[in-house]
């Protein structure tokens, strides 16, 4: 194992010890480090800032009250994400606003032989190079916020928040194989949504 990795594990172990012993300083540091990104994640998932703030507060208080049960099998970061994620999904389901994976947008692209039955759809008939990055970035951002939550969650963690695959697997409680499959489907859905726009 690389030396830096061992160092990180030791730091995390020490931090966890301080959190479990109830150190106010350690908890404040943890909140300062992860609070902002967790709030942003919750906001993009539920779409409403006030609801996201409630979700964050509830999740962090729960994490504080249950820290003794944290066994360190995953990183603290992924455990925090899992708490906020699960609370956000509960809230969306309670409000009947949770959207699971929709139809496969690429289902009709191919014929029985596995080849394109029509031309690969383009961006409004324009050559890709003619769409400037700024305009396309706005489209990508807008469409990301409209994707089904099961696609959105994995793209937010991977592409926007830059979490490691291992942390995402732990946060979403999925296997590495399932992570690869879901990440691909989410990207494909985002491409299809932007192309349709």
């Amino acid at each position: 194992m690389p030396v830096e990795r061992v160092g990180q594990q030791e730091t995390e172990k020490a931090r966890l010890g301080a959190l479990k012993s109830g150190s106010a300083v350690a908890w404040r540091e943890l909140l300062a480090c992860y609070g902002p990104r967790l709030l942003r994640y919750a906001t993009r998932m539920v779409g409403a800032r006030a609801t996201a703030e409630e979700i964050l507060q509830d999740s962090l208080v729960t994490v504080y009250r249950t820290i003794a049960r944290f066994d360190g099998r995953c990183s603290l970061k992924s455990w925090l994400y899992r708490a906020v994620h699960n609370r956000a999904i509960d809230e969306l389901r309670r409000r009947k606003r949770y959207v699971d994976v929709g139809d496969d947008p690429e289902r009709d692209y191919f014929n029985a032989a596995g080849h394109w039955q029509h031309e690969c759809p383009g961006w409004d008939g324009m050559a890709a190079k003619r769409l400037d990055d700024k305009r396309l970035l706005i489209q990508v951002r807008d469409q990301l916020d409209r994707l089904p939550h099961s696609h959105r969650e994995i793209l937010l963690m991977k592409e926007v928040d830059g979490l490691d695959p291992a942390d995402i697997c732990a946060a979403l409680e999925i296997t590495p194989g399932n992570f690869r499959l879901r990440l691909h489907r989410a990207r494909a859905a985002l491409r299809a949504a932007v192309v349709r726009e």
Partner: protein
Amino acid sequence: MVYIKCTDVVAKVSDILDGEAGRLTRMRFYGHVMMCRNCRRYLAQFKRIKELAGKVTPDDLPPDFDQVMNFVIREIDKPDG
């Protein structure tokens, strides 16, 4: 070399771009893409969308963010936890 279909290219594109595909898969993939205009177009779009998704910046924090955190800190500071 075993020929792969357009559906295989579309299914493998994330693994290819993330460096998760083996050498043989990469050779088959790019061998097909060289010959197929639609798959070249799909790959270019997919690659661009993936890059741009990585550039989506997080939202600004609300002005009252400290109050949100203070609520949690007050809970933590309660004598009974």
